């Protein structure tokens, strides 16, 4: 087994624009939704990178581009040194064995007309070289056992399982090809509260067991903090702050990260009247027409002229410990206030 810490994923200047077109037969491009607009990060073996941000920030599009379900407009996604964004045909298929995903909705992510055995065994039908035919049924049962399901249930259909169990089936499918990277797109947000912890524990156990690297996309900041080694905060297609989990949570430097953290309700009523809360005004602007300069400036209380003219780069700012994209970055603990 390769050692932990070795870099396996390098994302560089990733851009995904969805063209906005007019006309039915002869389409004319009239603009673009800038869903992901220049995102770079690395991921090491066995590590978890949390990605947080609100709807429309581009985190789900990012997941699709990483999975090569969408072709990026520009930029690269290198997995072990090879660019999956440019791979085609047999090479792409082979590369897919190394990066798999767990989806948000356990109800629509499993084909209702396939048995659990067929769903979990499908990766072996597609990648026939991974397991010899006679071996597949046994492998499927092993996978079900690994994710905590009864291996005798291979002939059941998805609707016979609860949401949490279905999510386990989805995880088993993702594990079948023994990938090194798993992209988890909101894997617990559709589950009942009392089930979420079970699934998070399972994901952590699998990570230790198989030395998996996770891209963990979620809007629940407390879950992200629990599972992540590093965290990236996204706003309107850009990473505005990235760093170790403790840095982001205890010493956020970007105003948006601070607002996001302070908006999370704390499950403890003590001292709730005194708690500092930064309430942002308005909604995020449309990604089809983002503000000039810093994209957050329209909702930012620190905004000055320079923010409209000059885009702040993602870099370590004076007085901060990690990269942030704000001209006026300054750490401010919004979570622990006493």
């Amino acid at each position, binding site marked *: 087994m390769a050692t932990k810490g070795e870099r396996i994923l390098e994302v560089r200047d990733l851009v995904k624009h969805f063209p906005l077109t007019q006309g039915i037969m002869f389409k004319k491009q009239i603009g673009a939704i800038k869903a992901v607009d220049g995102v770079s990060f690395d991921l090491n073996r066995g590590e978890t990178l949390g990605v947080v941000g609100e709807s429309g920030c581009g985190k789900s599009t990012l997941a699709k581009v990483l999975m090569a379900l969408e072709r990026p407009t520009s930029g690269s996604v290198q997995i072990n040194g090879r660019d999956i964004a440019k791979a085609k045909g047999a090479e792409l298929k082979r590369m897919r064995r190394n990066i798999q*995903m767990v*989806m948000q909705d356990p109800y629509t992510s499993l084909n*209702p007309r396939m048995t659990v055995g*067929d769903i979990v065994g499908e990766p072996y039908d*597609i990648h026939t070289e991974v397991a010899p035919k006679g071996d597949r049924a046994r492998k499927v049962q092993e996978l079900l056992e690994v994710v*905590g399901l009864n291996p005798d*249930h291979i*002939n059941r259909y998805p609707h016979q399982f609860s949401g949490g169990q279905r999510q386990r089936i989805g995880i088993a499918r993702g594990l079948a090809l023994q990938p090194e990277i798993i992209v988890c797109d909101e894997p617990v947000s559709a589950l009942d509260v009392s089930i979420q912890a079970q699934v998070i524990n399972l994901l952590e156990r699998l990570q*230790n067991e198989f030395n998996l690297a996770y891209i963990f996309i979620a809007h629940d900041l407390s879950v992200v903090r629990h599972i992540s080694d590093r965290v990236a905060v996204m706003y309107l297609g850009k990473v505005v702050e990235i760093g170790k989990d403790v840095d982001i949570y205890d010493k956020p430097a970007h105003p948006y990260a601070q607002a996001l953290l302070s908006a999370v309700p704390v499950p403890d009523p003590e001292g709730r009247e005194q708690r500092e809360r930064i309430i942002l005004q308005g909604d995020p602007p449309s990604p089809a027409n983002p503000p000039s300069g810093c994209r957050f400036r329209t909702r930012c209380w620190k905004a000055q002229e320079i923010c409209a003219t000059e885009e702040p780069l993602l870099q370590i700012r004076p007085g901060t410990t990690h990269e942030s994209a704000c001209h006026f970055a300054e750490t401010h603990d919004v979570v622990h206030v006493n």
Partner: protein
Amino acid sequence: MSDNPRPDTQTLTADQGTQTPSPPVKHRKKEAKPASLWSDAWHDLRRRPMFIFSLVLIAILVVMSFWPSLFTSIDPLDARTCELSSARQGPSPGHLFGRDNLGCDVFARTIYGAKNSIIIGVATMAITAIIGGLLGLIAGTRGGITDTITSRITEVFFAIPSILGALLITATFRDAGLGIWIVVFALSIIAWPMTFRIMRAAVLTARSQDFVLAARALGAGQSRIMFRHLLPNAIAPVIVVATINLGGFIAAEAALSFLGVGVQSPDISWGLMIADARSRFLEAPLPLVFPAVFLSITVLAFIMLGDAVRDALDPKLR
């Protein structure tokens, strides 16, 4: 780590086995033997009374079509069996359904008419379901320019007024010597766009679900996505509409016959019989009622069959 593959047993074991919230599953003897949608559907179908019943009905109709003499000793194609003097006579011994406008035996004609009607109905249903369904599946799956082109072509066909178009086609090819297949051909051309649209819409709904994305992420090819993922999830409405249309096709054949194309005397079909009996319906209803009842039974049998198959293909209804 590897010597203890399941570290947190407390939370995991409780989740399995003992309290699966699913409704009690009929316990299969060999749970370990892999099942699939189609084999499960077949297991299920064999236990459905509605399926068995419709299959028996259809079998009887098929036997009737090909060996009509098993059901009646009168050969209605033989003009000597008709007595013009007893036209529109009510039921009598030997002529259970009475006689029609020309004094021919209604029962025998109904039996002999089954063949043409059933061939036209079933063949048209099958052709429209396969052509429309397949094109709909391809258009819905591939989307983009393929979808645009096929959809535009379908709209052209939709624009043809149905009976008029069929009339035109049958009249044009009347002398090609294809017999009733001309009618099948004409009706199929008119009717496939409807199946196409239904299939395409169902495929588009299925395609937007995450499991298709998951299959693509695994590296599944287009044909796997089409036939393993989309088709089983989109086929139900096509089955329903196809079986309901069956009756429509048999009736449309009657309209064509009435207009002078399609099946013509001395050939027999239910449509032709209904058309012939219509003019004197108030005086003698039976020559119309009997073929109409047979037609209804046929349509019902196929609708029941379609319903049973559709339900069997939905694991939630098993």
